[in-house]
């Protein structure tokens, strides 16, 4: 079996918080990403699901090297990312591109679409000939579904709709022909009517270009069309990981079950009773001992408060971190 494109091992990203200034050492830390391990194969789409604040974006930024991990390793195409600096890191980033949540904010309002999409080429000194560069920009725009590209080259972001903007962001990512696309909630700010288009575009890119995708979402309803596997994240941890169909139909972790129960399922027959989670997410700076989900878990036992369950394999490729899964 070929080695995965991305192999993440025991990754941890902590943020200092509290009375933090140059004069005083930080008092506490937010455990935004806390001991995460997973792989993404070549041409595979992994959906990362979890509620707001669980650390999804931080995980993506850490993969990109925009946040420094505290501990752990990231193996990308055989290269240890956490050890890279300067020009090596820049070169590695070429193969990893990110699409952000809000296309209204992720595009510089003062730049034309053509400039936005061409910028990565310039920065990485690729396609230095003008004609070559223009051809690649057009190709990227077309690949992102902006056809014909000439119409868009001279436009400013404010002249485009939300969906078109997100396509521009995708084109600017595609122009470098990356091997991994990190899509951080790429449709949550868009109109419901055009969400499917963008998701289908990502699915198509995966199919035709064999791009690996980390698809971040807090909405399980959007994952089926694109994701091969699903990782469910809770408070900086992955609590369940498995093939899309397995996780959606046979969720093993009570948190996944709760998530699924509030998601409008595409198939009404799958509809179950709603599980309403009681209590609040614990403060990520003061995590409880034992299972992190225990304080809100509808099926928690005394054991759960005492010991933290590890991710355990249940059946092929399906793991969950629950004493009773």
């Amino acid at each position, binding site marked *: 079996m070929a080695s995965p494109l991305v192999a993440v091992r025991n990754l941890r990203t902590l943020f200092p918080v509290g009375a933090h200034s140059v004069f005083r050492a930080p008092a506490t830390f937010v455990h935004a990403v806390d001991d995460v391990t997973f792989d993404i194969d070549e041409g595979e789409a992994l959906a990362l699901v979890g509620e707001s604040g669980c650390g999804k974006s931080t995980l993506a930024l850490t993969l990109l090297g925009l946040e420094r991990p505290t501990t752990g390793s990231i193996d990308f195409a055989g290269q240890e990312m956490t050890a890279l600096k300067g020009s090596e890191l820049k070169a590695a980033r070429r193969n990893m591109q990110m699409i*952000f949540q809000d296309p209204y904010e992720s595009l510089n*309002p003062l730049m034309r679409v053509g400039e936005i999409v061409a*910028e990565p080429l310039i920065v990485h000194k690729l396609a230095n000939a003008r004609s070559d560069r223009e051809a690649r920009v057009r190709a990227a725009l077309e690949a992102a579904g902006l056809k014909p590209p000439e119409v868009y080259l001279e436009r400013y972001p404010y002249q485009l709709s939300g969906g078109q903007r997100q396509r521009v962001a995708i084109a600017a990512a595609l122009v470098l022909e990356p091997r991994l696309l990190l899509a951080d909630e790429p449709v949550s700010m868009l109109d419901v009517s055009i969400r499917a288009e963008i998701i289908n575009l990502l699915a198509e890119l995966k199919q035709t270009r064999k791009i690996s995708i980390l698809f971040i979402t807090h909405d399980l309803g959007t994952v089926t069309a694109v994701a091969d596997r699903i990782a469910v994240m809770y408070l900086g941890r992955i609590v369940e990981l498995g093939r899309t169909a397995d996780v959606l139909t046979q969720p093993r972790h009570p948190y996944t079950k709760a998530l699924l129960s509030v998601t409008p399922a595409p198939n009404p027959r799958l509809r179950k009773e709603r599980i309403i989670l009681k209590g609040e997410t614990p403060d990520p700076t003061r995590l409880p001992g034992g299972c992190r989900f225990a304080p809100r878990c509808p099926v928690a036992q005394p054991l759960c408060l005492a010991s933290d369950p590890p991710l355990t394999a249940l059946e092929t490729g399906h793991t969950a971190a629950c004493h009773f899964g």
Partner: protein
Amino acid sequence: MRNRRLINKVAWALFTICFVIVLNFFLFRILPGDPARAGIRDPRLTAEAQQAIRVRFGLDKPVINCFASINPPKPADCFVNPLDTQFFIYVGNLFRGEFGISYHSNQPVAQVLAERTWNTLLLIGVAQFLAIILGVALGVIAAWKLGTPVDYSALIFSLVAWSLPTFWLGIILLFWGSTNLGLPIGGMVTPGMNYASIWAQVIDVGRHMFLPTLTYTIVFLGEYMLIMRSSLIDVLSEDYVLTAKAKGLNSYQILKAHALRNAMLPMVTIIALNLGFTVAGAVQIETVFSWPGLGGAIYEAVGQRDYPMLQGAFLLLAVSVIVANLVADLLYTYLDPRVQLE
């Protein structure tokens, strides 16, 4: 689209200027007291002499049809030739570039104002230029080094500079500079100096300009730095900056390509407005350093109740504010593509 907006803006500015011209005229007619006596406060003036002065300054004509004077309101013939009233004579003179005769110096107001305006523009131009360059640079450094001692020092310096009373700072620098650096105390040139070359003259003016420019720069630098810093902090937290990082741009490239241009947008408005106001706003600095500028002229004219001078200066000030606004608007259209649609 662009052209329509341009025409609109220019038309609006012209309309405002017309309004100011009218307001400016009547404002000075609403003030109490006889203008003929306001300028010449010698009570021994005979009635004939006063009348002669009124004739000389055109004050014997009705203010406008139906009104001999506005305060106190005195009626007059409504069926006179409007062109023979003070108002239309004033408007007509304005179009010929005549602002009247100064009560005090007996010179044409336009001539006095023009000379003073150049002196002021020299001082303010250099000082604003320095304040903008240094303020923006300092603001960028502080925002870039957010939360570090560099940022804190720059922040404290700017807050202090911004809140220093101008007059006080000027006097302190004047004492310091004249005692320790041997710089001149006042004026624009050394009187009676024979310059060996044009360079000697430039150096002499430069020595006189140094302290007022320094004062002015410090006063404005703080404001620019604070605005630039907060504007850049805002921009740096935008997603497109993060996107740029993800694309592999380094810090310098991000500043250059993305952050600076966006962060400069709010600065443009503030700089333009400041320039508009400071044409006459350097009163304090000009007073401290005896700089023969427009601010000083206005200050003197108030003291001397030199209404023609005040009227001219007021108009100049209003027009410069309006023009500065217009320039800011147009510059904005040029810098920010989003503005066109509004």
